[in-house]
């Protein structure tokens, strides 16, 4: 059952991102197979725009996405664990600022 990649007749994979509303960041919806960009957009529409999800799509060839690897999790993300002062909620709002609201 092994197939080498030259025999692979499946269409390339595309990652689909949708924008829920004007000004909102694009979110990952999932992926579709498509032979080219226009049909990737159309397949995204038919797969992920059936329930009024958003107002715009991005489609990106999946092999163009550069991802961090699981081993990167430590050096990339752990250092933030004990630095709550990086969250705005860490700081109490001065009374003078509150008053102005």
């Amino acid at each position, binding site marked *: 059952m092994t197939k080498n990649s030259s025999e692979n007749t499946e*269409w390339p994979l595309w990652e689909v991102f949708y924008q829920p509303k004007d000004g909102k960041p694009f979110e990952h919806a999932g992926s*579709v*197979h*498509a*032979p*080219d960009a*226009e*049909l990737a957009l*159309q*397949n995204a*529409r*038919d*797969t992920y725009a*059936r329930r009024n999800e958003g107002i715009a799509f991005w489609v990106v060839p999946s092999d163009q996405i550069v991802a961090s690897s699981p081993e990167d999790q430590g050096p990339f993300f752990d250092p933030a664990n004990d630095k709550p002062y990086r969250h705005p909620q860490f700081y109490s709002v001065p009374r003078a600022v509150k008053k102005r609201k």
Partner: protein
Amino acid sequence: MSTFDTIPKTKQEALVETLLRLADDRLILGHRISEWAGHGPELEEDLALANIALDMIGHASALYTYAAELEGKADEDHYAYFRDDIDFKNIALCELPRGDFAFTIARIFLFSTFSYFLYQKLIDIVEDEQFNGMLQKHFKEIKYHLRHSREWVLRLGDGTDESHQRAQDAFNEIWMYTGELFNLDEVDQVAIQKNLFVDTLDFREEWEKLVVDTLEEATLNVPDMEQYMFSGSRQGRHTEHLGRLLAEMQFLRRSYPDAEWK
């Protein structure tokens, strides 16, 4: 009105007739396309075809519901399930068997280009608010059907040797059924006088241009425009295929009239 050979007299009769003609085309073609569900060439295209089929059946359902309201029938099912083939007013193009993927795409493309121009003109002239509202709502979906099928015509025509040949065969085979898109009979003439329909010959050139341009871009030959054209479906003279389609589509509702979704 339920028989095909009655010429409408009042505006309401003409409206019902127009609604049923539009609806029958869309129900029958929608049903044909729905036969792809679970058999599409790719999962994504399976979904796309199912969406298009559902859109068309949805358009038919809205049009039937309005006709039922005007005629005092219980609901849209009266038209879909309890009429025989001779009473269906759809054109033969919509009832031909499913065919291969190229045939499916060629048919959706030719029908959607026609619907695109027809709806565009109808939206301009139809005064009946409920009817016009449906046309506007459905027009958005028609634009997508046109875009999707046009892109596929380009890819099949300008694709592999096999896809090119299949697309060419599909257009050659279906061409004699495109004449009916533009046939106008007395029923249509009454509807046109009452601002419920438009003279389809007014946009025939625009339709031809879009079709010819697309076929040429797809490196396909344009079939002979002067060839013999099939006719008579709007008057109830259908191909043998409609009866079989209806047998499958209507059997459950007719055998179990009180069946409900549980």
